[in-house]
């Protein structure tokens, strides 16, 4: 007889209590539901028992704080009236980084963590956002307790950042050293050994540069001994807060011995191969007098002066008769003659000299160099070393006046420092600093590296270790 699949027959095949029996799929599901969360909590508990808080961290610490990774409570400190929260406090930051407030007139001091975002890995904590600065600088009068002279509203470099102050105020270069850049940069300039083409680096270099100077008499810096930093500039508008790296950030002042001496000879008399020292007038005067005294002592015959052969016209007065001078007279006369040449031509070509009849020696004006043109910002030439000088300082090829300010305008900066993937960093912190670290308070050191590494409290480490 054929198989018959009636509903009744099919129903009778089913055990009505089938759902009470465990089946593998459901059994697996049950055990996974139990074991997986249990394993998760065991893992967290295990790390907690080992005092390793990394699993709970919201992200890796920045490079400078990485030693604190295992000790969250170094920064996350329970504050007063806080029963549960242990947020990262300003006091914890100031235990190591106690800088003064930004401005005495500021009415609002942001929390450290609102600008410096931790737990973002190796990102620089200094890389604060424009919005952090714009909290106040977008409307400075409202954020200051009293009127300020600063620009009232700045939100971003490519938004409303003003022109650099020296251009905004139409100021001039106050330097008294006369330099005609155009003449110096022209082709086939007459050099000490023929025609040359000067380059910017023949006069402007970073202090640590070790290459020999092309047109100087100074010895190059020894490779063994690091180059001494440039002498303090004659005039730095505000040096300490934004003090550049003395080695590479700013260009050193051009020095006569290194950049000028090969072409600008300081010879004062054809009798002497020596040149006067590039120094103050009294030093130069003493050198000249000494040279003449030594000379006349060695050549007493020259005390008797013979008049030159008379080639005068009949209408001209007769030449003075032959004279016999004392050595002192001879030295005085020749010194005066040489110094007339020096003060009036050789020195004056570059320096501003105040020559008065009442003064025996001229008064040399202060050079008034400006080393740092951006008093409230920092600029690093070394970071821009790959760029041709004239690409940012085009005026250096055409300037004829010392008073010309040859730093680039803000527009030049904006060409590269702009938003977007094809541009470089444009945030405020790139050029401006918030904290004046020169006025920071000294910290009381408490950390012990071994303790941090072992995630133990410093008290657990014996003194002296």
């Amino acid at each position, binding site marked *: 007889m054929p*198989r018959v699949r009636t509903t009744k027959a099919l129903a009778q095949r089913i*055990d009505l209590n089938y759902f009470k029996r465990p*089946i593998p799929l459901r059994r697996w599901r049950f055990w996974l539901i139990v074991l*997986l969360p249990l394993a998760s909590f065991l893992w967290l508990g295990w790390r907690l028992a080992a005092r390793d808080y990394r699993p709970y961290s*919201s*992200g890796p610490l920045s490079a400078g704080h990485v030693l604190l990774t295992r000790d969250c409570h170094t920064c*996350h400190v329970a504050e007063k009236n806080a029963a549960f929260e242990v947020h990262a406090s300003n006091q914890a930051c100031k235990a190591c980084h106690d800088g003064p407030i930004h401005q005495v007139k500021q009415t609002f001091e942001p929390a450290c963590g609102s600008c410096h975002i931790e737990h973002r890995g190796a990102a620089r904590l200094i890389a604060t956002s424009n*919005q952090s600065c714009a909290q106040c600088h977008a409307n400075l009068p409202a954020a200051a307790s009293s009127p300020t002279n600063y620009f009232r509203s700045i939100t971003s470099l490519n938004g409303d950042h003003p022109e650099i102050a020296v251009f905004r105020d139409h100021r001039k270069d106050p330097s008294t050293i006369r330099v005609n850049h155009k003449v110096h940069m022209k082709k086939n300039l007459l050099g000490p050994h023929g025609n040359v083409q000067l380059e910017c680096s023949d006069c402007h270099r970073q202090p640590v540069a070790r290459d020999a100077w092309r047109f100087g008499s100074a010895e190059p810096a020894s490779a063994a001994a690091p180059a001494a930093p440039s002498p303090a500039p004659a005039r730095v508008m505000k040096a300490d807060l934004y003090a550049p790296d003395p080695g590479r950030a700013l260009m050193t002042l051009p020095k006569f011995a290194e950049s000028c001496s090969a072409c600008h000879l300081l010879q004062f008399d054809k009798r002497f191969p020596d040149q006067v020292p590039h120094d103050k007038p009294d030093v130069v005067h003493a050198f000249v007098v000494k040279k003449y005294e030594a000379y006349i002592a060695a050549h007493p015959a020259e005390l008797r002066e013979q008049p030159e052969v008379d080639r005068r016209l009949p209408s001209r007065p007769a030449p003075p008769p032959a004279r016999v001078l004392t050595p002192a007279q001879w030295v005085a006369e020749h010194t005066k003659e040489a110094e007339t040449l020096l003060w009036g031509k050789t020195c004056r070509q570059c320096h501003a000299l105040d020559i008065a009849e009442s003064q025996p020696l001229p008064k040399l004006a202060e050079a008034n160099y400006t080393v740092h043109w951006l008093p409230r910002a920092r600029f690093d030439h070394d970071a821009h070393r790959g760029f041709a000088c004239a690409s940012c300082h085009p005026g250096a090829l055409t300037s004829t006046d010392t008073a010309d300010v040859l730093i680039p305008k803000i527009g030049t900066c904006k060409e590269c420092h702009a938003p977007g993937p094809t541009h470089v960093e444009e945030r405020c912190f790139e050029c401006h600093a918030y904290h004046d670290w020169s006025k920071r308070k000294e910290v009381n050191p408490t950390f012990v590296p071994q303790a941090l590494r072992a995630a133990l409290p410093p008290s657990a480490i014996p003194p002296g270790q």
Partner: protein
Amino acid sequence: MRIDETHRVWLLASVLILGAATAVYVLYALEAPHGPRGGSPLGLTFGIIGFGFMIYAGLLGARKQVPVWRLGRAQTWMRGHLWLGLLALPLILFHAGFHFGGTLTTVLLWLLIITVASGVFGAILQHYVPRLILERVPLETIYDEIHRIRTQLRVEAEGFMEDLCGNVPEAVQVAETEEAIRAGGFTALRPSRTGTGAQYGLTEEEVEPVRSFYTAELLPFLVKPEGPDSRLSDETRSQGAFSKLRMLVPAAAHPVIANLENLCEEERQLTRQVRLHRLLHVWLLVHIPLSLALLLLSVFHVVIALRY
């Protein structure tokens, strides 16, 4: 659950929520001083809403434990589970600012991604596979009972063989299995084993091909139906085998052969049902445990985030 036009409202609501959240996030990400952060007010809002959706999605499991409670229609719960659970992922990504953060948050985010991905995979399977079962397994039975049904099929086959051939040596094995089943105290009736000896008046020689076929192919197939070796596991080859068998025996034995062929067909369908059922449910082994771990660890994350 089929994703059909009844989901339209949920779909529209989800798209609207996602669109609004995306627009808010883009503006927030562009304006946030240090980029989007979970701790910022808007980041926390995304986190709270996303976690709320996750909890709602997770409550489906609890809802299934109390099916008789008046807590809304099961279909509504399931639709909410699908769409709000799906929305939880972008909202939590907005909360995290697309950063994985530390170890715990990385684990949480990966758990969420895997849970949602397995859920989407499961939803796709739930949409297509039931229809596939309906089409390809007309003899579908209760999955949990398949093992018992298979035993019954073997007993039934044995009965057909006893009717045709008299005694069948392998009957001992089946009887023992049946005894084991009955010892479990189940309520299903015993399979009808009607064989009472040769009823078709055929000689031993005439039924020998059937006996050999049963011993060599049919019984091994019924004992181990998911083995790849048997030609009976393939419908076309099985038809060929039974056609050949019919040519070897007298016409009187053909009704028994037809019954045996019918048994094979049912066995094949049960095998197909097992495979489709596993496909339909095995993703739950990933989805449910991970989602539970996700919810529990999320609570831990909330506590840690509020403290630190």
